[in-house]
């Protein structure tokens, strides 16, 4: 099949809300823009499943800003980039207002005023109900009207560099994509590439997670981008109900005032998180439920019986998936309690990925990041749910603007055919194999390793190293044998390879951070260490053939920022059962 070649000023990879906003902004400033997406815009990306967006109820200015920054800084355990937080709070208002002007139907009061709702983890911050799918449909129409070239069902498999090498000493000069059903190769030459990276998750049948597997992360990694926050790449949730079904919408369930109770009917969250209690983050709640179980007070339940009917109606309104699921299984939240099934996997909660500055730029010229899978410098291990979609819009807008301004200063770089061939050989390799290992078998094996309780919950250096060895064994024994009978499975093979690389990177980063903070809990360092670890851990791929990660830390300059962290060490609230204690065999 003939190869398709494209030239453009700005190539946007990923058609979620960040990518759509980036493409629109770059187009507004006169660039030639191509937006490429591996599924279909408005039918893929976390935004499609979102039912509310973080939306400050007013434009925050001046003195007040400090209180808003404080909310994020505390939630992010003081690792937030406070300049980014200020920019986010200010501009998320603008992004939501412009969407309202474009006709996105945000939820309203009967009198027509916007209906702002409180959300988990915020005292000041508010959200607005919106059907993300409808919002994306409106953005898709705007993209078409604006003249952005949209290419769908094409997965970008790797980035091209101006020196033909990965990691590069030069700049990013384009990308290679492959049609997911026909295998047709698309080569894009671009002056700038905006990677609108979504989160990366294993395939756990959790709505929106299964098609976000770290393709963008892995491409940026191979190209030599700086990554931050990888040690916090752990996703936890509690909404696997009655050992039967999942629903998203956890932030909203917490938002209406859910209680978490144990077997004895006691509310236990304030023991684990005295500040936020039942409004705490997903990871904290999942851990607390697990600890209650370990100490023999489980199973734990979600209790909505005290919530007034009008709040249940509100929950159903802002999160129709919850309503559908409850109806399907005949659950009446006013009468029934639901057994909770928490879990922890390696994946981005938020704040793990390519590190970006205030303009969305990475350390590589011509490479920008937007989307929830970037290091989200404000949200790092934050507790604020629902911040993700407006964050992506803000970062996308910034990246689109900055990329468009860079267009006139650079020329299209020549294409290195060797680099194209190398990438395609790698991508198509599973099709040349006889039947050996299916991608789904690798996912199962990854799941088995990452759900080992010693590793998932009670990390020590030895346990993390053991997991790394097991993951690397998969990479050496199973990955070369992956075979794909068709182009669909070929894409799945690429996904699992990329996820595995990112999971190993995350584990290596967990070893480096010698404390417990946010999503990272270590039995050998069971405290948050503000004296030594108020810093970001940045990592980049080494230039040698093995590409071993090279770590470095960056001290945060609090002298410029309004919110100051407390000093000293804070012990973690989690108990460690005997068999998982330090020095035990497990």
């Amino acid at each position, binding site marked *: 099949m003939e190869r398709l070649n494209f030239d453009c000023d700005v190539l946007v990879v990923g058609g979620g809300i960040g990518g759509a906003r980036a493409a629109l902004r770059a187009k507004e400033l006169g660039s030639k823009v191509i937006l490429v997406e591996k599924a279909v815009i408005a039918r893929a990306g976390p935004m499609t499943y979102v039912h509310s967006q973080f939306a400050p109820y007013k434009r925050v200015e001046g003195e007040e800003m400090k209180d808003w920054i404080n909310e994020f800084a505390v939630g992010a355990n003081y690792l937030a980039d406070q300049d980014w937080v200020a920019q986010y709070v200010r501009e998320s208002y603008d992004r939501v207002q412009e969407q309202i002007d474009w006709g996105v139907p945000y939820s309203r009061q009967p009198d027509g005023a916007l209906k702002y709702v409180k959300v988990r983890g915020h005292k000041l911050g508010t959200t607005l109900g919106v059907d993300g799918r409808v919002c994306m449909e409106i953005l898709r129409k705007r993209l078409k009207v604006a003249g952005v070239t949209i290419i769908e069902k094409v997965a970008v498999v790797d980035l091209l560099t101006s020196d033909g090498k990965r990691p590069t000493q030069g700049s990013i000069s384009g990308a290679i994509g492959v049609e997911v059903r026909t295998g047709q190769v698309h080569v894009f030459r671009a002056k700038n590439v905006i990677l609108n990276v979504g989160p990366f998750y294993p395939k756990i049948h959790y709505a929106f997670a299964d098609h976000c597997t770290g393709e963008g992360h892995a491409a940026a990694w191979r190209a030599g981008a700086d990554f931050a926050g990888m040690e916090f790449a752990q996703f936890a949730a509690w909404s696997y109900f009655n050992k039967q079904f*999942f629903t998203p919408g956890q932030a909203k369930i917490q938002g209406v005032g859910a209680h978490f109770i144990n077997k004895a009917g006691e509310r236990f969250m304030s023991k684990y998180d005295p500040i936020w209690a039942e409004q705490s983050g997903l990871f904290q709640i999942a851990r607390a439920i697990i600890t209650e179980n370990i100490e*023999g007070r489980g199973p734990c339940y979600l209790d909505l019986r005290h919530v007034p009917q009008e709040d249940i109606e509100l929950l159903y309104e802002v999160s129709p998936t919850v309503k559908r699921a409850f109806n399907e299984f005949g659950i009446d939240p006013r009468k029934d309690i639901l057994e909770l099934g928490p879990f922890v*996997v390696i994946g981005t909660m938020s704040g793990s990925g390519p590190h970006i500055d205030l303009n969305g730029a990475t350390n590589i010229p011509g490479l920008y990041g937007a989307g929830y899978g970037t290091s989200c410098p404000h949200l790092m291990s934050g507790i604020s749910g629902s911040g993700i979609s407006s964050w992506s819009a803000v970062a996308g807008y910034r990246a689109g603007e900055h990329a468009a301004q860079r267009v006139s200063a650079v020329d299209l770089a020549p294409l290195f055919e060797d680099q194209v061939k190398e990438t395609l050989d790698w991508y198509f390799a599973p099709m040349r194999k006889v039947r050996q290992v299916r991608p789904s078998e690798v996912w199962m094996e990854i799941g088995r390793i990452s759900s080992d309780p010693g590793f998932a919950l009670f990390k020590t250096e030895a346990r993390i190293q053991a997991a790394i060895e097991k993951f690397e064994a998969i990479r050496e024994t199973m990955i070369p044998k992956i075979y794909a009978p068709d182009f669909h499975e070929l894409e799945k093979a690429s996904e699992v390879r990329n996820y595995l690389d990112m999971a190993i990177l995350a584990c290596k980063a967990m070893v480096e951070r010698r404390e417990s903070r946010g999503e990272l809990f270590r039995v050998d360092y069971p405290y948050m260490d503000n004296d030594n670890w108020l810093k970001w851990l940045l990592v980049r791929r080494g230039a040698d053939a093995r590409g071993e990660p090279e770590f470095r830390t960056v001290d945060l300059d609090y002298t410029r920022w309004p919110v100051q962290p407390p000093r000293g060490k804070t012990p973690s609230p989690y108990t460690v059962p005997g068999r998982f204690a330090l020095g035990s065999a497990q």
Partner: protein
Amino acid sequence: MIEHIDLVACDGCNVCIDSCPTDVLRMVEVAAPWEEKGWKAVVMYTNECHSCRLCAIDCHVDAIRVTHELHIPPPFINFTELTDKK
């Protein structure tokens, strides 16, 4: 996952095919014994469906039924194993 696609109701409009973010649906030309041959949506990659319901929402004849029930449980931790025996 997708529990059922009503092949009698399905009119082969193709919309659901592009609704699926994990690309599990395909069109095939089939005929039930009692009707003419026509293009119908089928689930090609059953295990990859993650119950997001976008296909069911987009289907204009309501032919697709999706359940939230998980047939393949994700890798969970078994708590009973964790409790310290006293």
